[in-house]
């Protein structure tokens, strides 16, 4: 654990009845690092993501996070379980982002794109309509959506654009850590490619730390510095992305890598 560790995960696990969906996962994440969690269905990767993002309660282990220093509290890692629910919710809306696999889960479909993007700011007390709108426009253009569609409902956007909208909605408060659950699945290949490019450049420009769950090794290679490979709830291999993909050690990792179809 270094001084600038952003997230420290120790032995986390989640059980559903007698079955451990994921168990004994540990790693440290630093600012600007992108970690891919790779595995097939049932590997526990999404459960892990939800545990880390406080959407599920831990059954084992701990997650420590270092909040943005604000002068009032000392810096350093805090046990997330020790934070009040109010503090956790505030954290997840200001310093974190969560991009859902299906944009419909991560957006409010009944209000306009602009309202979606500006919502977090309103939650934090934003009271100037004009400024909220300007910020929304700015972020829409940063994710390459047409600004003049600010009043359109999300259902009028294509899947790829909805995903961009979701990303903008999450980034508007300048989070340091973004969780992504299969951000490109279900999209057409060319749309995926553009979205990955966008994610990559945003991560670079904003110095975001990310935890990206994906079953697609190409996404991991493109976006991530590091990888965890999960099978049946356990991490079977971890390391530098290109090392894991080019020199896989664990049998399952070798199977995954060799199974990928090359066009």
């Amino acid at each position, binding site marked *: 654990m270094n001084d600038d560790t952003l997230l420290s995960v120790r032995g986390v696990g989640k059980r559903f009845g007698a079955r451990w969906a994921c168990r004994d996962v540990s790693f440290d994440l630093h600012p600007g690092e992108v970690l891919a969690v790779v595995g097939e269905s049932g590997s526990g990767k999404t459960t892990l993501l939800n545990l880390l993002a406080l959407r599920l309660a831990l059954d084992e282990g701990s997650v420590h996070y270092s909040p943005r220093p604000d002068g009032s509290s000392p810096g350093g890692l805090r046990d997330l379980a020790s934070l009040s629910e109010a503090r956790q919710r505030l954290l997840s809306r200001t310093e974190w982002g969560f991009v859902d696999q299906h944009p419909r889960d991560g957006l409010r479909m009944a209000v306009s794109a602009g309202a979606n993007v500006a919502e977090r700011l309103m939650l934090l007390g934003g009271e100037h309509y004009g400024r909220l709108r300007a910020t929304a426009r700015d972020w829409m253009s940063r994710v390459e959506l047409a600004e003049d569609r600010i009043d359109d409902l999300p259902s009028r956007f294509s899947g790829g654009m909805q995903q961009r909208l979701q990303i903008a909605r999450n980034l508007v408060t300048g989070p340091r850590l973004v969780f992504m659950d299969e951000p490109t699945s279900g999209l057409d290949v060319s749309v995926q490619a553009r979205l990955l*490019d966008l994610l990559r450049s945003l991560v670079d420009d904003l110095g975001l730390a990310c935890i990206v769950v994906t079953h697609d090794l190409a996404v991991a290679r*493109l976006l991530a510095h590091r990888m965890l490979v999960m099978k049946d709830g356990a991490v079977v291999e971890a*390391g*530098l*992305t290109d090392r894991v993909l*080019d*020199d896989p*050690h664990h049998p399952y990792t070798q*199977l995954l890598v*060799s199974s990928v179809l090359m066009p």
Partner: protein
Amino acid sequence: MNPGFCQSPTQTLVRVRGLGKTFVLHNRDGVELPVFSGLDMEVAAGECVVLSGPSGCGKSSLMRCLYGNYAPSAGTVELRHGADWLDLSAASPREVIDARRRSVGYVSQFLRVIPRIPTLDLVAEPLRRLGLARTLADQQARELLERLALPERLWHLPPATFSGGEQQRVNVARGLIAPRPVLLLDEPTASLDAGNRQIVVDLIGRARDRGAAIIGIFHDAEVRDAVATRSFDLGPYRPDRTLEEAAS
């Protein structure tokens, strides 16, 4: 620019001890493919070491171990990183990434870059990662691409559609633009015609002369002769040789 690597000519920058690499193919009943073992090597500033040995003896594998792309089965790979030694085989991912940013560059035979990024950005990126301002980084990238005779009309295009020789020049530019203390070159002149080969040879020579430690694989004898200061034979470290020697 990074001044920290104007090394004294005798300073060791790469230190390999007892390095071994064996692949275990679990999906082929666990068959083991040993590549080399017990490999020791030291490279100092200003040296350009050419790896030699028959095809398949592990030259590329050794290079990848030196870059942290392969994990060794035994031994250590140490690089001079800033003021310290970094054991790549035991380093954390972010340490390896930092080492690749500042201390060790890699030019491979194949251009493997993020698709859809324009050539100029690809070439400028290593400098920007070192903290150089965009305008300066772009400026140096342009100069290097000009030196490599890559036509200007290609600079704003992604290299996916370029010819082999054009792609290789982008590769070389990206690998050499940031002055890092250690350079790994795996067939850097592949696909290049004589004129471009010479340009690359000059670049390598310059890097060597400013004190970089270079390890390379060069099939082309002319290139080899022009840049290498010595050669390193992987022969002695091949698995069957080792067994033979052990038997005798």
